[in-house]
């Protein structure tokens, strides 16, 4: 007999094993079906189209594991070891069954290759599990939770792999085949085993190993192991529904969601967080269900980082838990899950900064889940914080979220000779859409003033809408007031078309984002001012004075310019092109930037939601650590937040917050320009 393995050596008839295997696979299928039923029940009706591209991306996500590796090399390698080890052993076992029952091809050299592959598979799985346990329980990586399930799952797998090696050792010890050394781990184990004990204990151990392995397969849908199936599904749905990084914060169907005409005032308990009422699409649920509580989102979330009572992971877990309880015919089938008490204010913390999406291994945009929850709360009316309630009322009545009137939107232009757009006025290159905050807030008006001066310097023809400028509605959108957002959008579209506006340039990344991504019906182009500055510099239309003095500046990426719309480089290029200016980066920059804390409507929520630290203060401390003199940003909300934090921390003397426009203007070759 050449090299070969006898599958049911000493075990007798295999039927019992196959019966148990069928049971395990049955449980796997039933459990998975329960997940699928939940997905279908909880989501808006919609088709999932087949897309080759999405499938390709999904396969590369699954097999390359780049989402897991991203920014977390140790975790990525650990996961890859477990993934590949598990995969090799699973495929190997399947091959063995084929060999046993269909065609006996695993003989001779191919058997030896098979044995070596299984040894390696087992070893890397073992290494992966041990590393995972060390990370969680020895290194105690802070983002990892230590629940019962978190210990049980890897230990179970550890026992499965360990017992597999021991079994092999016993088999080799008593059979003593001459090719034993190819199974190098098993052969090594065999050295510790006396043949007599081996033969008598073998059947027990074999059944133990078999039961544990089959059990492991069976519990996949009932534990966090479900991500083995859920994550690939989430990948596919993510790619195919193009829920890209520029994703809309809410599904558009929702804006037109018919309000039940007979029941205008839904009976709701006091500020109850009814997660199950939120309309979702399949990609959302797949991500919630595939979330394996890795905590990467918590680690990067600025709100959680500031010690606020919010963690995106817990929010997602509470959401999926509620969905299971409400929408699953059999209740929550997952073991080890329990109800979590969630504060009703929780959905109002998120700044929609998108940092979580950047790191989540299953493309989880927690902020979209939050936003959908907000939409439900807004419709119910009771869970809306008072300050947000008032802000929305003001937005509706006065076209801006501040305590100001629309008529003050032109105040900053006084004595400045800023061309106002008229219905049939002369052609201009673009409409400068100043935005509510920039036109009203005394500090940020400097953005508008300096941008206009730069435009004049460069000889660009532009105009502003002044008192007629509407609100883009973005605040309403991010806080889930989709109806108000739609009204504001219609309002803007109508005005732009009456004024025949073809090109819009905004001060605020928020207006920019809304126009660019949330106005699908628009027929005008939109740019953020930083793009215009870069272009003007590129065309040589902006002349900087030569400056002997070297100034170190650092740049804070606004979330809606950077992460949401991937404009990281352009503002930096503008900064770098100024003579004498040296750009130093903060620890968190570009796609890893830290939110200033103003997004998602937080600007208008007061201090009520603040934690131990303020997000803006955390950011400003990081900026100060660079040793830069100037903290440059490109968003009016960031400017207000950062400047405020500089004041409350008493850093104003060392570090000044400035808008990119102010920096450019102060460096221009203008008569009498010595702002710096």
């Amino acid at each position: 007999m050449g090299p070969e393995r006898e599958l049911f050596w000493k075990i007798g008839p295999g039927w019992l094993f196959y019966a148990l295997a069928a049971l395990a696979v049955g449980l796997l299928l039933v459990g998975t079906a329960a997940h699928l039923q939940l997905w279908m029940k909880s989501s808006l009706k919609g088709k999932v189209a087949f897309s080759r591209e999405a499938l390709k991306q999904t396969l590369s996500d699954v097999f390359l594991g780049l989402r897991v590796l991203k920014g977390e090399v140790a975790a990525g390698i650990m996961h890859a070891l477990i993934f590949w080890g598990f995969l090799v052993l699973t495929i190997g076992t399947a091959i063995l069954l084929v060999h046993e029952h269909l065609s006996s091809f695993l003989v001779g050299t191919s058997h030896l290759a098979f044995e070596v592959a299984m040894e390696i598979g087992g070893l890397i799985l073992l290494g992966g599990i041990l590393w995972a346990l060390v990370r969680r329980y020895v290194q105690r990586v802070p983002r990892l939770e230590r629940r019962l399930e978190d210990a049980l799952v890897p230990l179970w797998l550890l026992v499965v792999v360990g017992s597999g090696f021991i079994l092999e050792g016993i088999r080799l010890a008593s059979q003593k085949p001459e090719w034993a050394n190819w199974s190098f781990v098993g052969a090594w184990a065999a050295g510790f085993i006396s043949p007599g004990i081996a033969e008598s204990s073998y059947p027990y151990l074999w059944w133990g190993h078999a039961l544990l392995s089959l059990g492991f397969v069976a519990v996949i849908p009932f534990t966090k192991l479900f991500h083995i199936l859920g994550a690939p599904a989430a990948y596919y749905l993510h790619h195919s529904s193009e829920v890209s990084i520029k994703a809309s914060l809410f599904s558009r169907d929702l804006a037109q969601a018919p309000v039940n005409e007979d029941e205008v005032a839904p009976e709701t308990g006091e500020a109850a967080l009814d997660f199950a009422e939120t309309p979702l699409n399949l990609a959302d649920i797949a991500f919630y269900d595939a979330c394996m509580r890795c905590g990467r989102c918590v680690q990067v979330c600025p709100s959680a980082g500031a010690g606020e009572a919010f963690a995106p992971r817990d929010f997602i877990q509470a959401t999926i838990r509620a969905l299971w309880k409400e929408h699953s015919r059999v209740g929550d089938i997952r073991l080890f899950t329990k109800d979590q008490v969630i504060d009703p204010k929780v959905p109002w913390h998120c700044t929609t900064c998108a940092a979580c999406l950047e790191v989540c291994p299953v493309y989880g945009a927690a902020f979209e889940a939050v936003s959908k929850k907000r939409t439900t709360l807004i419709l119910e009316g009771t869970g809306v914080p008072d300050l947000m309630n008032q802000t929305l009322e003001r937005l509706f009545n006065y076209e801006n979220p501040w305590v100001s009137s629309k008529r003050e939107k032109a105040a900053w232009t006084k004595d400045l000779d800023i061309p106002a757009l008229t219905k049939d006025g002369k052609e201009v290159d673009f409409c400068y859409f100043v935005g509510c905050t920039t036109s009203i807030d005394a500090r940020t008006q400097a953005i508008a003033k300096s941008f206009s001066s730069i435009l004049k310097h460069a000889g660009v023809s532009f105009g502003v809408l002044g008192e007629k400028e509407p609100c883009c509605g973005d605040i309403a959108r991010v806080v889930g007031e989709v109806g108000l957002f739609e009204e504001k959008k219609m309002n803007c579209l109508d005005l732009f078309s009456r004024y025949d506006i073809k090109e819009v340039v905004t001060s605020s990344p928020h207006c920019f984002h809304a126009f660019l991504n949330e106005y699908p019906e628009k027929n005008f182009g939109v740019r953020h001012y930083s793009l215009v500055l870069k272009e003007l510099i590129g065309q040589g239309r902006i002349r900087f004075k030569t400056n002997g003095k070297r100034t170190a500046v650092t740049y804070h990426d606004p979330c809606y310019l950077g992460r949401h719309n991937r404009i990281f480089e352009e503002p930096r290029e503008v900064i770098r092109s100024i003579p004498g200016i040296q750009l130093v980066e903060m620890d968190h920059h570009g796609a890893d930037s830290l939110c200033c804390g103003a997004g998602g409507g937080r600007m208008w929520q007061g201090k009520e939601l603040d934690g131990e630290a303020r997000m803006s203060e955390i950011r400003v401390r990081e900026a100060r650590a660079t040793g830069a003199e100037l903290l440059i940003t490109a968003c009016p909300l960031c400017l207000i937040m950062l400047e405020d934090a500089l004041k409350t921390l008493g850093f104003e003397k060392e570090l000044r917050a400035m808008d990119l426009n102010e920096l450019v203007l102060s460096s221009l070759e203008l008569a009498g320009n010595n702002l710096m």
Partner: protein
Amino acid sequence: MKEPKIIVCAKQIPDPEAPFSNVSVNVEKKEVVVDAPDVISPYDENALEAAIRIKEEVGGKITVLSMGRKVSDTVLRKTVAAGADALILLEDAAFERLDSRSIAFVLSSAIKKIGEYDLILTGRQAGDWDSGQVGLILAELLGIPSISLARSIKIKDDSVVVEKLVPVGYEVVEAELPALVTVSNEVGELRYVARTKMMALLRRPISIPKWGTKQLELSVEALNPVQLMELCPPPDMRRECVFIEGASSDEKAGKLAAVFKELR
């Protein structure tokens, strides 16, 4: 007990939260000119919220009464969107600028016309003139007990239990129904009314009765307009902040002294 019938009196006023630049005072005409959308007086919104919470707890029916020379049903439909069951508008040219007693008189006639009620809620005062009288006079005219300045209202059997604000803290007061309670902001803000909900409601035909002097069988002579003796604009509160620059403290002090001298 049976489900209570609640009447909420809600006044439509120019937005008291309007930005300052939208408000001016015409001294000759004794008029405050507010260029701002009309809203429901905030304390009346609190009263409505209190009513809705009672309804959520024990059931009931809420009727909103609003009175004025011109009342807009787009403004007042918000009450229905929030959770009221019926809306009645009291509209008549003769209802303009009435004094508190006359307003209470009109309201009492309307409430008598409605007939059945258990609880009447009003705001503690209106957000425009802040008189705070109508509620209590109304109770008097109806001959029912009244409790003012409620921070919490509960219905228990056939009575209403109110936490009534006093200068320090609150006292718990109980009155037999029917009764009138004036509501303070501590009750909580009116729940948010989403625009989609509001728009759906505006499209939906609902019958909103309009009653004037004729329907209420009132004689105009019984109504007295308010007599405004004098109206003055608020004092100019503008402030200016000047940093005194100077090389030394002496120099700065000298300049400061000069400013003081000039101001004297």
